[in-house]
């Protein structure tokens, strides 16, 4: 596959560059042979800045490496080149100190804007608490549209087929694990995080045992889940869809096996889902109280 792979690479590269230039469709989840960062599915995305930085580097690279290759061709001893004596040029040195500074100021301005908007969690209409455990995530819905959510929370861990397949020498085929045509090996969970689209969601992210990092590329960021520290971040998803990610901070033996799935649904559908969850929680609580009553009643 190597030579074919490398050939495919270059055609894919070209396609990728064209896509990047034309602002082509974004892939939200990892795709085979994907070359570039996803544009994401959220209001905030570092994609634009990434592309600017990439092109700045490419242009500087072409100039510097181009000069090097010209030098290597022109100033070869085998072509009869005789070494010159100069060792210094104040003018040139000022030029190549000042120009990078200007480029950096431009990049810094761009990045500062990105940071400022990322840090601003005000105006969120929903709060979800994310807790990282070895090796699963817990999601607790704290508040929605200013109202506290009543006991809606659950664990979310690697779904069973992937878990069986990933065992050492299982001889099961990872390619066979698919959901709606997408190969979800190690990127699917038993119970996804359900969120509404078009709502600014604030995440409170903490670690339950060791440090984890909550990362869904389509959201545009990752944030560490650290014991004893409550980190916050926000997203506002534009389109319904299933967005996949995984833990990004080494957290022990099953670090590679704690995926994240965010299922974004229209607001009405979400509100219905949330109501069902709250009802279930109520029923569960009632059942617990009922269970508890026979024990306590005789004493009371």
């Amino acid at each position, binding site marked *: 596959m190597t030579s074919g792979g490398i050939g495919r690479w270059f055609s894919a590269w070209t396609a990728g560059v064209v896509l990047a230039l034309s602002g082509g469709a974004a892939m939200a989840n990892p795709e085979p042979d994907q070359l570039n960062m996803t544009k994401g599915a959220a209001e905030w995305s570092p994609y634009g800045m990434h592309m600017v930085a990439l092109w700045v580097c490419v242009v500087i690279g072409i100039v510097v490496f181009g000069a090097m290759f010209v030098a290597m061709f022109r100033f070869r001893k085998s072509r009869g080149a005789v070494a010159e*004596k100069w060792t210094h040029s104040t003018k040139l040195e000022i030029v190549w100190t000042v120009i990078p500074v200007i480029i950096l100021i431009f990049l810094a301005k761009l990045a500062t804007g990105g940071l400022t908007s990322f840090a601003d969690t005000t105006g969120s209409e929903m709060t979800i608490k994310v807790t990282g455990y070895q090796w699963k995530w817990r999601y607790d819905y704290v508040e929605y549209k200013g109202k506290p959510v009543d006991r809606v929370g659950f664990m979310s861990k690697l779904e069973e087929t992937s878990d069986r397949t990933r065992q050492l020498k299982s001889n099961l085929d990872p390619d066979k694990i698919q959901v709606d045509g997408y190969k979800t090996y190690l990127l699917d969970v038993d119970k996804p995080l359900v969120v509404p689209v078009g709502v600014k969601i604030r995440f409170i992210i903490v670690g339950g045992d060791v440090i984890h990092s909550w990362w869904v590329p389509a959201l545009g960021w990752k944030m560490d889940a650290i014991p004893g520290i409550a980190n916050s971040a926000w997203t506002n998803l534009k389109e319904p869809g299933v967005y996949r990610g995984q833990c990004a901070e080494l957290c022990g033996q099953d670090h590679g096996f704690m995926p994240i799935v965010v299922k974004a649904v229209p607001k009405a559908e979400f509100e219905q889902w949330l109501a069902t969850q709250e009802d279930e929680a109520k029923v569960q609580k009632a059942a617990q109280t009922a269970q508890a009553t026979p024990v306590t009643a005789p004493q009371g």
Partner: protein
Amino acid sequence: MAHDATHDHHDHHGAPQGFFQRWVMSTNHKDIGTLYLVFALLMFFIGGAFAMVIRAELFKPGMQLVQPYFFNEMTTMHALVMIFGAIMPSFVGLANWMIPLMVGAPDMALPRMNNLSFWIMPFAFTLLLSTLFMPGGGPAGGWTMYPPLSLQGESIAYVVFAVHLMGISSIMGAINIIATILNMRAPGMDLLKMPVFVWSWLITAFLLIAVMPVLAGAVTMLLTDKYFHTNFFNAAGGGDPVLYQHIFWFFGHPEVYIMILPAFGIISEIIPTFARKPIFGYKAMVFAIASIAFLSFIVWAHHMFAVGLPMGAEIFFMYATMLIAVPTGVKVFNWVSTMWGGSMTFETPMLFSIAFVILFTIGGFSGLMLALAPADFQYHDTYFVVAHFHYVLVTGAAFSIMAAAYYWLPKWSGNMYSETWGKIHFWSSVISVNVLFFPQHFLGLAGMPRRIPDYNVAFANFNMISSIGGFWFGASQLIFLGVIVHCVYFSKKKAADRSWEGAKGLEWTVPSPAPHHTFDVPPVIHDDELAHGHTDH
């Protein structure tokens, strides 16, 4: 009388005959330099073997070879062995061999300490590597040893003591280098006439002295947290896991430059030699190294953009990090300008140096991208970062060490290596290393986290390409070993004292191989012999 005494001295002090006397009891900078280099080469192959395990497991999706925990041991040990066992000792070995020769000193300033600082290393690494054979296994929390995860491991005490030993060794080595450079230069070898390699090591040695104790402090706190009920990093006891990261990276970022500044020095020696033209902007080169060293102390939190720092801190560390691009850019531009107008030939050391300039710069570009905090929220802890630091450490630091080995082997061994096989080694390495690491940029951008033993099938093709490049690069290094062994023991081609036509500097005025003792009498320095004899430019 002085002359007579020295002469006498010279006659009776060849290399000691017995193996034990010569190598274990050595106080000779050349022999200790050789020990460091041989040790580093051994560690390079051990660390490389760990990398082969990693690339083999990642060859295709699914777990085929090792358990996830063992995979984590491999990533952790690969990093520790390569950083502390291969890259750093080889730079110290080069310093030992070359600094006294370059500044016209008879030996290192503190020869007995020199012996001690080398002989600590084998013990440190025996301690570290022995953990792999223990019931609880080796360290598996990453080379950064972040708590609380690292405290779950049972081998933390071994790792901490090993790190302490490496730290002591490094600090002693650094003291020795500073003492040698500041006190033992031959008369007339002014600071601003020193080779750039010597300058780069002088600055690096100060970095080492400044930060190795910080690392020792951080890991000692891990030790007391684990065994003596302290709570430095335990949130439940009022501690803070992020505190460790601040302390670690306050060491860790200068450490990154400890592994690249001597490389800058080496490249600044080799390119002028094979371009037959003095280095462009000597003072700017020295000043750039010093600026980078200074900046390295105020950028540590760019390793921590995703830990949830306050925005002001993110902005400060982002700006400071971006600033490093300026002196680094100056260095790259100056290397290119040194080539411009030269009369170039392309022997193996030059090939490795040119590859260094290009590929290290590619690592610098991805470094600039990583410096942009908002973009780093995506890049952080992905294969994009893995690609970045392997470009600066493998095609940067390791390539510079290979360049140095080819450049100075004739001086060390008295024989020329096989240019044909050197070039085969170069081309095989430079192609395979790009097959190995370039696709990792794509993997990271597409969403593959680092330090995972298995992955989604979307990442399959590039991982397979990367693994093939990895095996190929690993195999290529056997050629390197072969070239060295051939050169030292079998080569029939004797090296001239000035082994390279364009080579300047005091090390080329002594015979090849360099005799056991050199510069018993300080050399009379002729500015024309030095690469930077005339300080007016």
